[in-house]
């Protein structure tokens, strides 16, 4: 096998493997959400948080990220708010 050909086979990850990896992540994430009672009020919580923060600084809808992770018996509510330079 030529060196070139060798590198060619090394380089791209097969798309099926990429698909599996992406699916495992998204499905685990969605299962966590689905099994959590928090899911019921999450959208409302996100909306209200946005309103509170807006009293102090300008913020876009996509600047706030809420996530629920399961850690054994605990559920962790992760809240990420990005404040850009302009609105500080």
């Amino acid at each position, binding site marked *: 096998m030529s060196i070139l050909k060798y590198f060619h086979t090394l380089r791209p990850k097969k798309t099926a493997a990429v698909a599996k990896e992406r*699916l495992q992540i998204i499905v685990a994430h969605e*299962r966590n959400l689905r099994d959590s009672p928090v899911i019921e009020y999450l959208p409302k919580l996100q909306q209200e948080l946005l309103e509170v923060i807006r009293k102090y600084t300008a913020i876009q809808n996509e600047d706030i990220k809420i996530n629920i992770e399961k850690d054994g018996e605990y559920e962790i509510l992760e809240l990420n708010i990005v404040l850009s330079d302009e609105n500080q």
Partner: protein
Amino acid sequence: MAKIIVVTSGKGGVGKTTTSAAFATGLALRGYQTVVIDFDVGLRNLDLVMGCERRVVYDFINVINGEGNLNQALIKDKRVENLFILPASQTRDKDALTLKGVLKVLETLRKRFEFIICDSPAGIEHGAIMAMYFADEAIIVTNPEVSSVRDSDRIIGMLSSKTRRAVQNLPAIREHLLVTRYAPKRVISGDMLSVEDVQDILAIPFLGIIPESKSVLQASNSGIPVTLDKKSDAGKAYLDVVARFLGEELPVVEKKGFLTRLFKN
């Protein structure tokens, strides 16, 4: 006691109706009294796939509303003994289905049939919930492709939360993974998720593989369930699925004479 089996997927166009027709026909060929119900109200298609579209007089909704009785609505298959079709309404929408109405019809069918197959509409809305609500078992039809797998997982979540068995804390619905439109060549070349990949992700018991096959379109063109086409690889795969469903141990053939493997759940 009759078993109610829902054929479901979340995503549209993955092969639920094809599977419902083939699976019901396979069960009837085995001698079981079988009825297959089209829950896709407004988008009736099972009648076409089964080749009885010109014999529809009364439908599922007519029966629910008392506009016709069940015996008038049930269509007896002309080729296979013990096989009946209950068509969906073409003029109504899915909201015409009510839990009370569906239960009434299922209770009557239970007295007469051994297997009741419910062909679910796509989606996760009312129609899909009506089809799965009273199920004892579920066949989750999945294509080896990202959106289908993700939607199947969503449906699995609903089976364990939005059905009678879940709500009433009864034993859970028995789930079966059916991977359809499978192309072994593309799996080998690394472009298609393998059946093991799909099973890894969804983590429900495996029922079988149906290959991507020209014979499926030919069968639906002619209104013949693909299990009646003796030459069809997909038809043969569906017959294997029926056998496995009935508890027989069969090897899983991914490609004729090439990859033969025994799957254990």
